């Protein structure tokens, strides 16, 4: 507390250094709280203050270094050496950090953190850096397919991860079939991935939590960043409206294809095939510092995706489109009661919509036929979080939240001149109430035990499900260079995201918990250790984490249904009854994650390896027999290396390997003996129609996935004043044809008949990557 005695004064002196080069940093502004005064370091990076005893906070926010805040209680003369992160060696820092590298032992082994600078140092697909792809390079995480900006964590599906953007859950995280995620990299401050050891404040999904925080608007300084890559263009502006009181931050991203579409003339619809597609997103926030203890943040996020294909055949104009959009807005109120107590209230609303359709219009008669599937989800919520730190050894987190959902999983419009039908699935209202309490107790030096309990109640007038989710975590550091971590936690998931399970594209649908669909739940066990080695200005760290996960009431499509054909083909009334095409079962996954990191002055190497197994069992699938889960990627390896070539040039490379994932492929194929239905019309094989026989789910492994990406990055001053970065790289250097999706096709025989073949489609051959960014 700031109970200061003016009679006594102590000296605080120290120096600020660049953690990468070790050089002193001159004229760095330090803001001292509670005085809110700014003092610069001298030419040798030194500072000296004389202050009464009490609680203080130093804030250092100086580009291109990471913002850093150091809170301390001044009881005697104090010496500090503060090292600021440089881009090359950056590791995520949270709160006070006065060491050169974040040691592997400092956080539990089941948690990974990435900050903005670390993200920027990684090579990227077609120049596009992506936080989810960065996480998919870490142990225990894989992407569902090549280039996909999604994550499968420890045997869980992409739809079983909680993706948060400034505390608001996202329904969709993908742009353009997953090519990039909706997280705009220019505004990401930090991201934290919990593979286990879940804090009690998080829940709603059973596999992992990804908490992405965006940068707060700078209240004093106008600044911005522009970035262009082969795929997208981005701009971020920070605009102080009232100095040190109110500021606006706006960040937008648009696919370059969208720009080309905008500047292209309207193409006559009766000519050939026309492709049009776009994606974009916008993040805005308005920050208002009411006082040192009260802050408001109003945020808005929106993303859209669309692909349209038009094709003219004879007199028919065919159109196929897939569109989705997602929006959310939130009002945050941060209240600091004292150094020991703070409160955060968030009120938010969001909306998700999906539109997949096909139309045929006769250009002469103007008659039109449409089949369209629409999904709409909207929700509103309030979140209350309170943190209290009664002593150095104990702190409490508690809170509650209430959220209401309105669900229309799908509405089908079928419309033509003679037939006009509309099938709408039941609109479901759902309310979720949550309360949690968690205590962190430091029972000995560097020994931390966390105990939490989360209560979750979800349902409506028809059915209410209550769940208690205990969370226990331990993290202890021994002799400063060895740590042990262990955790047990239960998670539940009321909203099911169900993906296609066969060949072809993995379309997904959302379904709420209902009388028939029970909430999914999981128990997550994790036990790990980490060890740091330091010698001769070299750092080496290694982490090992063994894990086991059980999953209950996971959801799959029944045989014969998928996300498109369960709605189109099924009889009209079937879509009202999910039990006709969905089924629930159980799964388990276990494995071991290894991570190693080696740092020397100009070079770093990170290696991640996971050995795992995942399987599931459904009474209604595969004759009740267990089968490999689609996430059962037995071995995954990633190697990332960064090399500083000079003061301004650096080089990075990433190599990834994933063993094949299970898919379902027919075991047998036979020529269909009937072209019609009556037994007396059985005929000899004519070579045109085949029937497939599936004897086992996920009976086939795809080809292993592996690729090497490299990039060179050059930092320089553009227009003499502005920091600019240009990255040139190569994606998939050795041009490996990695599978994106498998499908069955026909290849023509010499006698003009077709033979069935199994094919896979690869999307990304060797590709150049380019990215240029400018900070102003």
């Amino acid at each position, binding site marked *: 507390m700031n109970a200061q005695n003016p009679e006594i004064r102590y000296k605080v002196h120290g120096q600020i250094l660049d953690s990468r080069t070790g050089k002193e940093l001159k004229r760095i502004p330090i803001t001292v709280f509670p005085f809110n005064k700014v003092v610069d370091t001298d030419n040798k990076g030194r500072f000296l203050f004389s202050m009464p005893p009490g609680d203080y906070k130093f804030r250092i926010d100086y580009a291109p270094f990471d913002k850093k805040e150091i809170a301390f209680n001044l009881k005697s003369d104090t010496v500090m050496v503060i090292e600021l992160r440089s881009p090359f060696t950056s590791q995520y820092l949270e709160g006070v950090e006065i060491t050169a590298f974040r040691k592997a032992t400092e956080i539990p082994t089941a948690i990974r953190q990435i900050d903005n600078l670390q993200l920027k140092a990684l090579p990227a697909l077609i120049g596009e850096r992506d936080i989810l792809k960065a996480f998919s390079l870490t142990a225990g995480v894989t992407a569902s397919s090549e280039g996909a900006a999604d994550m499968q964590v420890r045997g869980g599906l992409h739809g079983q991860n909680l993706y948060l953007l400034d505390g608001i859950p996202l329904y969709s995280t993908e742009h353009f079939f997953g090519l990039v995620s909706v997280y705009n990299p220019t505004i990401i401050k930090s991201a934290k991935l919990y593979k286990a050891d879940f804090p009690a404040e998080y829940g709603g999904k059973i596999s992992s939590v990804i908490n992405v925080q965006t940068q707060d608007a700078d209240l004093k300084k106008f600044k911005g960043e522009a970035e262009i890559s082969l795929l997208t263009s981005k701009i971020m502006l920070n605009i102080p409206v009232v100095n040190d009181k109110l500021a606006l931050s706006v960040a937008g991203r648009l696919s370059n*294809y969208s720009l080309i579409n905008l500047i*292209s003339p309207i*193409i006559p619809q009766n*000519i050939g*095939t*026309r*492709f049009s597609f776009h994606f974009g997103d916008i993040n805005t926030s308005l920050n208002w510092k009411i006082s040192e203890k009260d802050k408001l943040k109003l945020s808005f996020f929106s993303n859209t995706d669309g692909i349209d294909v038009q094709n003219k055949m004879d007199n028919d104009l065919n159109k196929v489109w897939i569109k989705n959009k997602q929006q959310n807005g939130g009002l945050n109120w941060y209240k600091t009661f004292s150094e020991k107590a703070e409160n955060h209230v968030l009120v938010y609303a969001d909306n998700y919509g999906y539109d997949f359709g096909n139309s045929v219009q006769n250009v002469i008669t103007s008659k039109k036929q449409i089949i369209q599937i629409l999904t709409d989800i909207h929700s509103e919520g309030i979140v209350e979080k309170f943190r209290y730190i009664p002593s150095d050894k104990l702190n409490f987190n508690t809170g509650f939240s209430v959220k209401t959902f309105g669900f229309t999983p799908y509405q089908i419009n079928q419309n033509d001149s*003679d037939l006009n039908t509309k099938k709408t699935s039941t609109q479901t209202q759902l309310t979720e109430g949550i309360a949690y309490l968690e205590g962190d107790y430091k029972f000995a030096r560097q020994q931390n035990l966390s105990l939490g309990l989360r209560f979750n109640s979800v349902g409506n007038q028809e059915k209410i499900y209550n769940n208690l989710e205990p969370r226990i975590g331990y993290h202890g550091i021994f002799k400063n260079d060895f740590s042990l971590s262990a955790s047990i936690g239960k998670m539940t998931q009321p909203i099911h995201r169900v993906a*296609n399970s*066969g*060949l*072809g*594209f*993995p379309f997904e649908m959302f379904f709420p918990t209902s009388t028939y669909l029970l909430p999914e739940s999981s128990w997550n066990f994790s036990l790990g250790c980490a060890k740091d080695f330091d010698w001769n200005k070299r750092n080496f760290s290694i982490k090992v984490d063994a894990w086991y996960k059980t999953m209950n009431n996971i959801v799959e*499509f029944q*045989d*014969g*249904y998928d*996300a498109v*054909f369960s709605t189109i083909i099924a009889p009209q*009334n079937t879509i009202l009854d999910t039990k006709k095409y969905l089924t629930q079962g159980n799964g388990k996954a276990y494995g071991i994650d290894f991570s190693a990191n080696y740092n020397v002055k100009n070079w770093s190497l990170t290696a991640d390896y996971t050995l795992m197994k995942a399987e599931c069992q459904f009474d209604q699938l595969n*004759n009740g027999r267990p089968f490999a889960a689609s996430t059962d990627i037995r071995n995954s390896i990633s190697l990332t290396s960064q090399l500083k070539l000079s003061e301004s040039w650096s080089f990075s490379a990433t190599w990834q390997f994933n063993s094949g994932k299970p898919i379902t*492929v*027919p*075991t*047998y*194929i*036979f*020529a*269909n*003996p009937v072209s*019609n*239905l*009556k*037994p*007396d*019309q*059985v005929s*000899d*094989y004519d*070579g045109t129609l*085949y*029937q497939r*026989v599936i004897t086992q789910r996920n009976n086939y492994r795809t*080809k292993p996935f592996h690729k090497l990406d490299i990039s060179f990055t050059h930092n320089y001053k553009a227009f003499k004043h502005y920091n600019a970065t240009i990255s040139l790289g190569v994606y998939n250097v050795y041009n490996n*044809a990695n599978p*994106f999706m498998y*499908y069955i*096709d*026909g*290849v023509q025989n010499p006698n003009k008949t077709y*033979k069935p*073949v*199994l*094919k*896979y489609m*690869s*999307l*990304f*051959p060797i590709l150049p990557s380019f990215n240029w960014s400018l900070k102003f």
Partner: protein
Amino acid sequence: MKRIIPFFLFISSFYGCSHIVDAPWNNTPVPVVYSIISPNEITQVYLNKTYNSNLPIEKSPYPQAKVFICGVDSNWVELSRLQADTCIFEDKQQLLKVEKGKTYYLKIELDNSIIHAQTTVPSNQLTIKDVNCVTDGTTNNSLVNGQIVKNYVCRLDLSFEGTPKTDSGFFISAFSQHLYGSTNPDQQNFLAPVFYCPTDTSSFEISLTTIDPYFSKYLNAQSINSLQSDYSANMVSAITQTFGGVLPPFSNIENGVGLFGSSVTDNRRVKLIKPVE
């Protein structure tokens, strides 16, 4: 040129390519059996083997095969080949009497294995209650077997009665065309607002066929299969129109694959109602 840019960029981003890989079905072939038995129909059995792209296609791969069917009386009836080089066997003497609600057994003796299967003929038959086919005289042309056929555009309205057993199904057909099919009908009527009837026809036969559960699953798989097309020239279609689920299992053939099913059919003659000229 400007039109080409987005197209080029789109294609270049999907430059990729399709690659053929070895498929699981290219393993040792197993026997394929297909037979639907029905009262008042001559019993036939089709016997072939599964497809393997590395092996030549044979018209009659099991020349020594012997095919038998029996009912509850345990008298095996041997079927004979329709022709010497065909894979279709038939009860030429019509010794087998197929009845509703009875169970029938199939046995096929091959050189080194015996195939078994059984089916129970549906007892809860759906029957046509009423059917109407009306046209206002509007005509349309369609292509049937390479010939242009002039049709009346009609409205077909059919109601039926009865409830099939769980998992059984039914289908409605006319002019050898499958009009509609389902399992466990919730509504006992069928309406086709657009139904083509050749103009040289004053009446036609419509059939309501009640089928056993395996036949129902087979038809379900077949209807999904028929959605599959050659997408090699159109990747967008490959992404959006490929069935992404898992085909339902339908085989009830022990030591082989295929279908031994049964059905019962109710036929009705329908008079086409035309406007008075």
